[in-house]
């Protein structure tokens, strides 16, 4: 079926522009493709004369941990701008919303969606893989072949994965 209405995010793939209503800003970008846009946002915020905290690149885990601290300390009026591959943007957005940010306070730009975090519903392990929705990837926990379903949890920043060959008898095509 078309993915137009599913839980799968359809976020902007070109610069949505700066949200000028904020009082202060945080800008995070992941990967080289996102950097020029993020730097453009950064310049515009500086021109507006508003405070900004920015990170371009770096280890994703460290950036997310630092983001969590920033969210904890942020005051209403704060805006978060995220640019990068879908998997990173999803993960950063989940950190922000669990800290209390609303969609209205987050601007997103997705540069590509080659990678997915896939949650194995059978062993509760999440695997990052280069795989498309509807394709199959191995679970790094239980080793099962998982179908990457067109269903996404924004809270866990993951796609739903389930056993692809449960309904086939050995040797049958999937």
């Amino acid at each position, binding site marked *: 079926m078309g993915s137009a209405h*599913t839980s799968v995010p359809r976020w902007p793939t070109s610069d949505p522009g700066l949200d000028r209503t904020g009082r202060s800003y945080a800008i995070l970008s992941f990967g080289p493709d996102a950097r020029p846009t993020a730097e453009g946002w950064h310049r515009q915020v500086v021109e507006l004369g508003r405070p900004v905290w920015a990170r371009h690149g770096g280890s994703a885990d460290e950036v997310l941990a630092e983001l969590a601290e920033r969210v904890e300390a942020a005051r209403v009026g704060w805006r978060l701008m995220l640019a990068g591959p879908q998997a990173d943007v999803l993960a950063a957005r989940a950190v922000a919303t669990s800290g209390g940010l609303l969609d209205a306070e987050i601007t997103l730009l997705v540069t590509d969606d080659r990678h997915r975090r896939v949650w194995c519903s059978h062993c509760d392990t999440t695997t990052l893989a280069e795989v498309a929705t509807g394709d199959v990837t191995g679970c790094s926990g239980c080793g099962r072949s998982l179908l990457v379903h067109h269903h996404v949890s924004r809270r866990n920043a993951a796609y739903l994965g389930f*056993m692809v060959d449960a309904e086939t008898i050995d040797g049958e095509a999937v």
Partner: protein
Amino acid sequence: MTLSVSPRLATFPFPFRADSYRYSTNVEPARVPVETEAGSWGAGILHLDDDYAAELAERRRILAADPSRLQVLPHMRPAAWDALLTVLRELHAQHPGSMSLEQDGPTFVWRNSLLGVEQRFTEGADDSLPGGPLGFLGSQIQDDVVLLDQREGSLWADAGVVTFAADWSLGFDVGMRFLEVHGPVPRIHEEGIISRAERFLMRLQPGEECRRTNWSMSVDRRLDQSTEVYPEWGPDRRAIVDAGPAELARRLHLRVEVQHLIRLGASGAIMFLIRTYLVALDELASVPAWRERLGRVLAELPEDMADYKGLVRYRDAAAHWLLDT
């Protein structure tokens, strides 16, 4: 009523109003009895039947093996307490001879002689109940429960105790918007069914109640068809294809969910109750009108819906058994 049928059939919520089935925003008022060819259902919200104790034992087993079937995001504590007290009061009102809820200030005593339960607890103190308010609620009714919070112009499935899911995972869906929860369902988004349902539910006022039915099929009397345990039940969908007609009719079940939607008072949450009924085709066939109607629905069901419901492998065989044997 001229047919003499089993108690299971007499209260079975046969869901089809015509010989073909399509999705719709099929909500109707709760507590209105529906007459069927075999009896009636739906006079009350909660329905305890002969399987009461057995199904609750099954839920206990499932929760012990996989605690993730119970989910309460922290902001849903008031809703969980509201749901518990609302349901216990409803049970007391329906079964005054065997159940009672007594209140003395913040302390309550719940007695349920059908299960041999006497439980004292303090409202708001989660550890005064085994499993907390929602876990305990799940130990007193056969229904699965989802609690939805309303904010930012949406409903959010933020808590639940779901051990009898039909091919979905509460642990994965918890925290999603209503529209996201329904993401995988074909047709309903294009047809505006699900956004209309959400607008309707968001307008339910304190105390208002409605219900709908949903249906699917399953191999064997297996209530737990959560995605988590799909490796256990998925193979049966393939195995049944090779079964003979008698085995097919004995093992294949029509699975119907009666879903109640109740706007809770004090918390403002929506309580979604899912009560699952299973009847084997050979038993269902003792009501000729049902046999024929289910056969026609299965034969006519569009491929995308049959695929979504997991029926593609065996629906032709089932329709054939119902209509032509």
